[in-house]
């Protein structure tokens, strides 16, 4: 039986590295794109074959730095190796500063049907702080290009909880984003990893520290505002018009299999979690046959851990976990299995059980880590 998976393709190039970003991405390496593309195809040949592909996601980095030809090459390589479902969702992340109507029209014709724009903010002051190469006007223009090119599934990313950001600053970005009428919105609280330039600036006192209570208020403001504009809140950080939830990301949250190719790409296949090397050079060497491809992680997920991960990921979804679904998949009743955790968390008002589903409360979504760690196995 052919199984259905999601496919992730990592594009580790950026024109410029953002000061808050800790993702695997390289600036000033665009000259390597051609080589990298060949390596990606080699990896696909080695690892894909015969599956049914439900979604493809070009993530980064800045995937919109790939030329139309390269995107076309990759999509045809995938189609020749595996069966891409007729209705497959094919997403590309794009930086508003790197796209134009010609480019978007061309990739739309290649089958890319979902565009995720890294808008981040509609305040230019904040965009400068974030080190982005675009402005709020660029974002609006990118949306017009996208609509003009036939994209009818558009997602915007915004970041809140920035150093010095006020509630009204955030409201402005939200209002502007809603006015662009995207089908989907992802709102991320700024989480600074140690040793990113912005983290250091805060440590040194040249930027104000982030107030977690204010971030919480921003989140709640967004929940209220987006609900009023008919966006469904379907995951902790994600909102969508009915039926336009991101199918690719739902694969992660439902703890279903996916293949990730490219530098630092993660996969979950056959009960294993795998990750490729984070080094661009090692990765390319590996897929040009000099040395074997370098896996940085190969972890077997035992059934207990798989259950925990399924619960933790599933609780990210606002609908929660379908108790029957878990019973079918693991043969257990999670209300009994996690009796103590469920009781405690319900007592704190973070978790609720209704209509056959176990789900986070509104408060629980903001405190989800406090919920999740309690489900980890000993």
């Amino acid at each position, binding site marked *: 039986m052919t199984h259905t998976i999601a496919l*992730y393709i*990592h594009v580790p190039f950026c024109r410029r590295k953002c000061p808050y970003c800790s*993702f695997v991405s390289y600036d000033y390496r665009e000259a390597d794109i051609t080589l990298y593309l060949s390596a990606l195809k080699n990896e696909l040949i080695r690892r894909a074959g015969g599956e049914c592909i439900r979604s493809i996601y070009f*993530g980064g980095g800045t995937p919109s730095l790939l030329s139309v030809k390269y995107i076309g090459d990759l999509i045809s390589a995938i189609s020749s190796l595996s069966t891409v479902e007729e209705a497959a969702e094919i997403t590309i992340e794009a930086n508003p500063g790197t796209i134009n109507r010609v480019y978007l029209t061309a990739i739309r014709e290649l089958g890319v049907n979902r565009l995720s724009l890294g808008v981040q903010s509609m305040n230019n002051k904040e965009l400068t702080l974030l080190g982005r190469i675009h402005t709020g006007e660029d974002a609006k223009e990118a949306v017009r290009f996208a609509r003009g090119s036939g994209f009818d599934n558009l997602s915007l990313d915004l970041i809140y909880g920035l150093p010095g950001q006020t509630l009204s600053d955030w409201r402005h970005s939200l209002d502007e984003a809603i006015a662009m009428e995207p089908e989907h919105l*992802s709102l*991320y*609280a700024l*989480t600074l990893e140690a040793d990113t330039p912005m983290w250091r600036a805060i440590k040194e006192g040249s930027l104000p520290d982030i107030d*977690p*209570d204010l*971030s*919480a208020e921003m*989140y709640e403001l967004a929940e209220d505002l987006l609900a009023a504009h008919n966006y469904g809140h379907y995951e*902790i*950080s994600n909102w969508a018009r009915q039926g336009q939830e991101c199918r690719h*990301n739902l694969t*992660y*949250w439902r703890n279903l299999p*996916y293949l*990730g190719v490219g530098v*630092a*790409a*993660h*996969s*979950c296949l056959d009960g294993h*979690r795998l*990750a490729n090397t984070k080094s661009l050079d090692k990765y390319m060497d590996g897929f040009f046959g000099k040395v074997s491809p370098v896996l940085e*992680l190969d*972890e077997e997920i035992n059934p207990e851990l798989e259950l925990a*991960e399924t619960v*933790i*990921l599933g609780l*990210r979804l606002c609908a929660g976990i379908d108790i029957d679904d878990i019973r079918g998949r693991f043969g257990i009743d999670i209300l009994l299995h996690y009796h103590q955790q469920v009781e405690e968390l319900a007592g*704190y008002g*973070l978790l609720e059980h209704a209509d056959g589903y176990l789900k986070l409360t509104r408060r629980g*979504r*903001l*405190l*989800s*880590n*406090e919920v*999740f*760690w*309690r489900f*980890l196995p000993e």
Partner: protein
Amino acid sequence: MQQALTRNFCIIAHIDHGKSTLADRLIELTGTLRREEIGEQVMDSMDLERERGITIKAKAVRLHYKASDGKTYRLNLVDTPGHVDFSYEVSRTLVACEGAVLVIDATQGIQAQTLANTYLAMEHNLEIIPVINKIDLPGSEPESVLEEIRSVLGYQPQDVLLISAKTGQGVPPLLEEIVRRIPPPKGDAQQPLRALIFDSRYDAYKGVIAYLRIVDGRISKEDRLRLMGQDTEIDVLEVGYFAPVPCPATELSAGDVGYIATGLKSVEECRVGDTVTSIYSGATEPLIGYHHPKPMVFAGIYPTQAEDYKDLREAIEKLNLNDASLSYEPESSPILGYGFRCGFLGLLHLDIVRERLEREFYLSLVVTVPGVRFSITKTSGQQLTITNPDEFPEPTEIEKIEEPWVKISVITPSSFIGALMELLNESEGIYKHTEYLGQYRSSGELGQRVRLEYEMPLRCMLTTFYDQIKSRSRGYASMDYELIGFREARLVKLSVLVNDMAVDAFSRIIPPEKAHEVGKAMVAKLKEVIPRQLFKVPIQAAVGSRIVAREDISAKRKDVLAKCYGGDITRKRKLLEKQKEGKKKMKSIGRVEVPKEAFLDILKLG
């Protein structure tokens, strides 16, 4: 005959004035050990002693010295603990000697413990040889120290030797002076045995090794002996002396210093200060009055993890084998679980015990605020002795409270007098006396050196007092104290409630007028160190049912990982695992989780 050629002496000094280095040099110059064999400081065997520059357990080394008169003398060097906490042990050591070398640092002059030790030696009629050490150092001022010694201690400059224990300069003349000035031991080898135990230590193979000074009579292997104070009978498994490794001998006789192996299982049974005599036709009178040194400072010691209780118990039992002055009894606390209420001779003793438990036994500990012993008369007439603040009765039940007081002596350059007097006054000290030490230094930048004498409750000297003395004098002041008895006190118990639950470990006994100030500081600190919880946590300080300070920790609102990047679930899980591990290390106060550091921070508050 041998007795006339024996000299028993010790070295007394303030911390870091060079006592151990001088001992090393004497060992080297008498040919007992070669320099390369000495390592560093033979007389201090525990790491901790070296690091802290103090000597915790006394020992004795026998040196053979050929003097300029052509005769070979037997010099028994008895090492003394250098700190006030161990003054009982110091005084027992002094009884074992006829003389003392008083070491004073040429860069620092007379310090508080120089005086305390000198007065002790004088009380025991020891012949004192003052020496000024570290004359090789660039900052040394032997002239002014000579003047100080003359004016404060009354020794003429010609009686004081100038040495450098480090380089050996001036040490050979010191050996001559030891032989010339210190009298040979008295006592009669034909009389019934009387020997004084001045130290003891537990050895896994030979049982308790007792270090002793034979005053009358003699001891041979296989003798049956009796400890007069404790009425313990012992068999002498081995007799010998240290050179500095143990050297078994056939006998020790009047005037000698050496050791006996007793086979006893614990130093409890063979305490410092006891007199040893023969079972048959032994002596009738002990050498000196004998008593247990009483612990003065008390603290609860608990394992951070409840499952380590057994290890903690074993560790304390082991330490107690060698340290009879450490007292302990099991205690349980609703918050901290099972642990021990331990009694110490003083704060340094507490520190040493805590560090040894952590370092040598790898234990993670919570140590409660140190306190003293209170003697309480209840309105019912009942008498109580309280060493745990949590057991303090309700204010209405108390008729009278008495607490230990000390006489404290602080030596400081005069420019810090103001700052130190302020500290002493804040610490409930009562001014007694000021004394100017010598005249010579009056021109110095920091002014003439002064000795301040105060009386104050021992309670006020615990926690941060010593650090304050040091910091308010830029490290120049030194202090020493002695107990002067119990006095009536007006005190209340300040309790701390976290989420309406009293935390016994945080209770402290303070004067009522300080309740508000101390309570405020404690709740403020707790608000700072307790992480926000999933619910609002009130923190209150109370005297009886009266709340004197309050802060609230608001509920945590946000703890969320936003982005699920490219399917990297593993990293997310690792972060959650880290969070879970962190929670495990917390102590729970009811539903409130408090990091161990929070306890330590509160316990550190003065």
